[in-house]
């Protein structure tokens, strides 16, 4: 459906570049709500993250077929249904229509990581949908705004993360940046500025 909009440069397959992408990701998980530039500017942020994290040990769901078959071959990962996958790649503009794996009490780390592609992430409240965040990694509160995210995601997430330690971890990605919202982050939706 959106195949042509996911970009991939040859550099991203280099371990050194993946290490830089991962360090950005580590920062964004440590400080939720901080919009982090992806270390590879020529590869779509969501794909950079997948390349840095997935391999044959993991499962990936791509229900909207955002990835080409050539990319699937290089990712070496196993396709899976959204309900069971460790990683899920989706376009954030459409509504959630499934329940992801939220882990079990003795293995909460099996809760899914959900990568949502959005049109744009904004440090300020100029986007058409504001999120106010608090929780671990955030000194008091922080706010960002997003274009191209269906509000139903935030409501659904609220449900999925309601019983800590169970939950899912979100990463919102625009073309060149990403922002992480691990399950501990409390999100309130705000009005557009």
């Amino acid at each position: 459906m959106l195949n042509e909009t996911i970009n991939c440069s040859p550099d991203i397959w280099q371990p050194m570049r993946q290490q830089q992408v991962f360090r950005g990701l580590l920062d964004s998980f440590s400080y939720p709500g901080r919009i982090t530039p992806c270390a590879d500017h020529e590869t779509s942020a969501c794909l950079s993250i997948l390349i840095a994290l997935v391999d044959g040990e993991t499962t990936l769901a791509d229900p909207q077929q955002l990835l080409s078959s050539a990319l699937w071959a290089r990712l070496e990962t196993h396709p899976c249904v959204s309900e069971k996958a460790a990683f899920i790649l989706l376009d954030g503009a459409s509504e959630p229509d499934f329940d992801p794996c939220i882990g079990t009490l003795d293995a909460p780390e099996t809760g899914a990581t959900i990568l949502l592609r959005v049109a744009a992430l904004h440090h300020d409240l100029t986007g058409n949908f504001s999120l106010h965040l608090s929780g671990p990694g955030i000194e008091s509160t922080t706010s960002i705004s997003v274009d191209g995210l269906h509000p139903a995601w935030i409501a659904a997430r609220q449900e999925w993360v309601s019983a800590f330690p169970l939950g899912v971890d979100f990463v919102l990605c625009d073309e060149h940046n990403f922002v992480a919202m691990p399950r501990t982050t409390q999100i309130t939706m705000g009005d557009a500025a």
Partner: protein
Amino acid sequence: MNSNYELPLEDAGYSFGFLDEYAKKEVRRCILKAIAIPGYQTPYASREMPMGRGFGTGGLQITLSLIGVQDTLKVIDQGSDDSVNAVNLRQFVQLTCPGVDVTEKTEEASLLQSRHRIPEKPLTEAQILILQVPYPDALVVVEASEARRKIMHAEADYSRLLVKLYEDIVHFDEITISHRYPTRINGHYVIDPSPIPRWDVPKLHQSKALVLLGAGREKKIYAVPPYTLAEPLVFDDIAFRVEDFRDATGVRHACRCCGSTVSFLDEFSNDQGMVAYQCSDSAYCEEQQQTGSAA
């Protein structure tokens, strides 16, 4: 040994960071989940390293999975940059990660791998502290079965641990845990914060820097994210207290080298059998001696 044997000449026989990329990816995935579930001991497939388990392989695997050529690494063993464990691990990283800088100055490092101490100098958001952990589970003293411990952790059921602390108070009038003090992270999981002294436990609370803890032998990684609650387990009427280093008359000992009275001190006996005190954090002590501004 075969006398014709030759070591591989190319040090490029190893990939950057010694670990293969699949191993690094697994550790990286595990670290992200550990941050997302603060204090939860995330299992991972700890790799064989060319050093014995128990020599910091857990911390080392985290360091090697994070490190890149833009990093500056500091390695500490019991506060010191110059003791055996620190020197060996630092040399190993220099050998396997060409282009990485190393330093002894806390403020210059982007990654700090440490055994049993957190530096005196406060860490910043640009730094990541990696602690080597021998025993990751605080509940191991009260429950032998890991399956049951996992359930207790999931339910945040630490009543038996609190009973243990209570028994200490009954027997000795105070909680006798000197290091590895059980600490509750973000109001849920209780961690063993590795054998850091009590002195260092408050530094975990609302830390500016990410703290990652790796137990290689026990195959666990857990994290204390920045700006996160880290509360030592205590009772309402018995406050947590850190080492105070006072002598019998109530005067605080000073470091014999730099004279600091605000740092964590190691106790030594000199040749005459006299007890002497010295800063445990060697980088801090040296800086105090150079600036002469010891408090």
